[in-house]
């Protein structure tokens, strides 16, 4: 009994498991940074979409509709590659000498100096930007819709009292917009959280990859504990983890909503 406990304790704390536990930070990092970028791209996209100039409006709505018309996985596979090549191309225009370009035999990169090595850190950043880019398209729509959901009368009243358009924008429009945007942004956040399960497709040794490795059946004592296919148990842990994150996120968004919705939502008498 005691032996069992110590055995399991040491099994569950071996390096492989520690690496698994450690990989949760990648997931959390990608979600948080991805969420940040999504809001940034969302605000940007919504600004474009609401712009007075047609070309900008076109860019804004093209961005949000094309990206949402295509599965996120496809973007995750495509965007990092495209981004890497774009960076390398940009660097090459700065550093490559004509001789170096001539000397380069392989089709890419233009010259050796322009090559960009991607390690876990870079991949993680790329993944976060990809998440931000994909879900920024959703956030664009949410924020755009929320801006339009602010009752016209609220803005009219501000204008009628002589506020300038920037004052109207910041003191009333954006201030009230959050109430309408938060439910949508909360959805987008949940999307981001769940799409972090795809990080393994981006060459990050994330929680899913480790769960798969740890759960795979093993017959060789040299490799570690010999066991049959245990993957579904490891996946069950991930399943629970994601449910917990969802639950926690909901609580946080509820609190945010209460803050943003003061006066607008509360009807309880003082």
């Amino acid at each position, binding site marked *: 009994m005691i032996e069992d406990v110590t055995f399991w304790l040491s099994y569950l704390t071996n390096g492989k498991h520690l690496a698994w536990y450690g990989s949760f930070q990648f997931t959390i990092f990608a979600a948080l940074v991805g969420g940040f970028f999504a809001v940034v791209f969302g605000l940007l996209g919504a600004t474009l979409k609401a712009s007075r100039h047609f070309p900008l409006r076109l860019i804004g709505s093209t961005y949000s509709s094309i990206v949402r018309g295509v599965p996120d996985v496809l973007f995750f596979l495509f965007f990092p590659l495209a981004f890497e090549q774009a960076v390398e191309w940009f660097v090459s225009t700065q550093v490559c000498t004509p001789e170096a370009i001539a000397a380069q035999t392989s089709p890419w990169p233009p010259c050796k100096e322009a090559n960009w090595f991607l390690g876990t850190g870079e991949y993680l950043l790329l993944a976060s930007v990809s998440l931000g880019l994909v879900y920024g398209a959703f956030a664009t729509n949410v924020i755009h819709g929320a801006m339009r959901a602010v009752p016209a009368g609220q803005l009219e*009243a501000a204008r009628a*009292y002589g506020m*300038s358009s920037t004052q109207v924008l910041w003191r009333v429009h954006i201030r009230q917009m959050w109430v309408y945007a938060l439910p949508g942004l909360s959805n987008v956040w949940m999307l981001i959280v769940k799409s972090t399960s795809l990080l393994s497709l981006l060459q990050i040794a994330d929680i899913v990859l480790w769960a798969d490795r740890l759960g795979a059946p093993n017959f060789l004592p040299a490799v570690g504990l010999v066991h049959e296919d245990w993957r579904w148990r490891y996946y069950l842990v991930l399943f629970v983890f994601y449910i917990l994150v969802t639950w926690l996120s909901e609580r946080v968004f509820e609190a945010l909503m209460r803050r943003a919705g003061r006066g607008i939502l509360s009807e309880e008498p003082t």
Partner: protein
Amino acid sequence: MKQAEPSAAEASPVVELRNLHKSFGALEVLKGISFIAREGQVVSLIGSSGSGKSTLLRCINMLEIPDRGEVLIDGEAVALKGEGPERRIGDENQIRRIRSELGMVFQSFNLWAHLTILENVMEAPLVVQKRQRAEVEAEARAMLDKVGIGAKADAYPAQLSGGQQQRAAIARALCINPRVMLFDEPTSALDPELEVEVLRVIKLLADEGRTMVLVTHDMDFARSVSDRVIFLHQGLIEEEGSPDEVFGATRSARLKQFLNAANHD
């Protein structure tokens, strides 16, 4: 009914509209409206639903830009550029200055939902007129007391009844110390008992000699509070005059019909 004071006719014009036209798409709502509201006068706009009363009122502070015609506030013409539906505000600074002299009270109140009543009242003086907070707060509280909702200063609009909200909206408009108060159907969203409260406040203002332009459905009220009554019909001023003339000696057949329906109300 208020007595038309002889001095009123000679007082200087505060709001003057000259030949105002406004269309929404194909629908021509205002077809050439001119009138003058002088210092201290109360002007009521009446007319059936859709006759353009609200539109007219909103043209005064340029929430709607008239397609044609001029608006003069205190003798100063509001600068506009362009023609017809493309017409735009000409001078942003001028319009902001002028707007802050026109205290608009909306039919649906339009209190800022994210601010408390006190903050609502203080917002424009602080942000637009850039006055001192302490001074504004004292004045705002006094104003709320005056309209009878001093106790609700720290509540949010959603926590107030309709009548209280309407009075808060009046306090908000008053607190910018406007040359003119514009009221759009100040009581139509209220139930009869709340209506009484709000009408009492407006009457108080009228008796103080404040210049007001108001849209109303309530004929008794229009009669008792106004110096001039203007009846709008199909985009034009169909009849205009003192309450006695308009209600007592109605000339237009259409106005007669309207007043009958309103009486039956």
